[in-house]
Structure formats: structure tokens, C-alpha cells
């Protein structure tokens, strides 16, 4: 039986996390801040993370263009305990990834880009 789009998206997110153990959690969110698919830890409030991801990406896009940096590629937040990285998935969605603090970012970025391309086809 064919899997639903959400199931396929979740499968792709799990793939991403399996292939890059530095990635601890991930989610796909619509640009207006609603969850589409997630592989987040149970203690994370999905709805809030979704809304924040959409707000952050949209501000990122505005500041990149306002300051002449062109089309936004990704938003990258570094905290004492790790990273939050946001990238757009086509025109409609955002991929949000949580990574460990000692993550190999080159690999994380590469795998995120590939996942975003695949997810874009599913949306």
C-alpha cells in the first residue's frame, strides 16, 4: 500500500537523522508555521517550534534581502548546547534541524540540502 505524504516525509526525516547522527531532531513546517511532519523529541512542543521556525525563516529572508545578501540559503542559530538550522523547502515549507554542539556542520549542511530537495518533491 502506498504511504501517505506525511509518512513519506517522516521517513525522509528519519533517514536524515540516521545518516547524520549529529542531527538530533528535525521537522518540516509550512511557511505560515504549521507542522507538516516531524521527528522531534517528545518533550518538544511541536506547535511552538513550527511557529518559531516560520517566523525566523521569514525574518531571515527579509534581513538577507534588506542588507543585499540575496536569496536566503539558511538560518543558523548557535547555542551553548548545539545548533538550530533552518532552510527553506521550495516555496511552501521550512526544514528545521537540531544538531549537537560538536556536529560536523559541513556534513549537516550537505545532508540538509539533499533532504530539502527530496522533501520539496513530496510537498
Amino acid at each position, binding site marked *: 500500500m502506498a504511504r501517505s505524504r506525511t509518512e513519506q516525509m517522516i521517513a525522509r526525516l528519519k533517514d536524515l537523522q540516521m545518516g547524520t547522527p549529529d542531527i538530533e531532531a528535525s521537522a518540516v513546517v509550512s511557511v505560515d508555521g504549521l507542522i507538516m511532519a516531524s521527528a522531534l523529541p517528545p518533550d518538544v512542543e511541536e506547535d511552538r517550534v513550527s511557529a518559531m521556525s516560520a517566523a525566523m525563516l521569514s*525574518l531571515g529572508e*527579509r534581513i538577507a534581502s534588506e542588507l543585499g545578501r540575496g536569496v536566503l540559503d539558511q538560518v543558523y542559530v548557535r547555542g551553548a548546547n548545539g545548533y538550530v538550522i533552518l532552510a527553506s523547502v521550495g*516555496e*511552501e515549507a521550512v526544514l528545521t534541524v537540531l544538531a549537537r554542539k560538536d556536529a560536523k556542520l559541513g556534513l549537516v549542511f550537505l545532508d540538509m540540502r539533499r533532504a530539502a530537495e527530496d522533501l520539496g518533491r513530496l510537498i
Partner: protein
Amino acid sequence: MQTVKMVITGPFNSGKTEFIRSISEIDVVSTERKISDPTSRQKKETTVAMDFGRITVDNDLVLYLFGTPGQKRFDFMWEILSEGMLGFVVLVDSVRPETFREARRILDVFRGYATTPYVVAANKQDLEDAWPADDLRIALKVDPNIKLLPCVATNKESVKRVLLELLYTILETASD
């Protein structure tokens, strides 16, 4: 020169972005995104982070306007945007009574952030089904000493009047 930060808030689709666009002298910094949820498709796009506009009142006074998202899931932005505000406007969609309760809730949330002056603006008064401002005062249980002003957010003069009323209230409170 003095700058005054004002926050423009209110429920989903009450006209906050339009309000700021009507009066801002700079290109408004907007963060509108396509609405994906088909049940709330009263319009095509909605604000997900903030709007920002500016209006010079005279040589000594500039207003900075910060518009909030209306939907509750973005309420983390409300608190961020309310920091340092000297007053706020609660916009009410006068043609949709089902949003009045939410408008009242938002009003209370913002009063909780800071004890700054505020005004309530009964927007969309140009539409036939609009509740008159006096009826809205009763429905929303707005205190008699709070200004409740009729408003048409697409009309620059109407927006200007609301902002000046808030400004006067701020100045009066400051001189008390």
C-alpha cells in the same frame, strides 16, 4: 529627537498589516506568508513574525510602529515586540463578532506585559455589517476611560487619528 514605540495588535485578519501600510513613510518591513490551512482562508497571506513602519509626526517626534502576528501560535512574538513599547493599539474586526473574545484576550495579554496606555480601534467601519464603536465597547467590556475609536485601516487619515489619540494618551499619562 524623541522616538515612540507603539505596538499594533489584534486578532487574525483584523487589519494590522494594512493599518501600518496605510501610514508608514518607509517601505513596511512585512513578513507575510501564504496561508496553508484551508479553514482559515479568509485571506491569502498572514503575518508570521512582525511588521515594521515609521511615521514622522514633526521634527522632534517619530513613531515606530510594530505590528504583531494575530494567530495565537505566534504569541511568542507578542512578548518580544512589546518590549520597550510606550503604548499599543488593539484592532478589532468590527464585522466578525466571533473574534471579539479573542480581541479581549489579546488586550489582557498586552496589559499584562506593561502598564502602558492603549486604545482600541474598531476597524472596518466602512463595511455595512460593522458593529458601531459603542456596541463594541459593551461587547468587549472596554473600560469607559479607555478610548475606543472607529477606524478604517485602509484610510490614512483614519489611521493617523487613531495613532494621534494614542499619542495624546501617552503624553497625558507621562505628564500626570
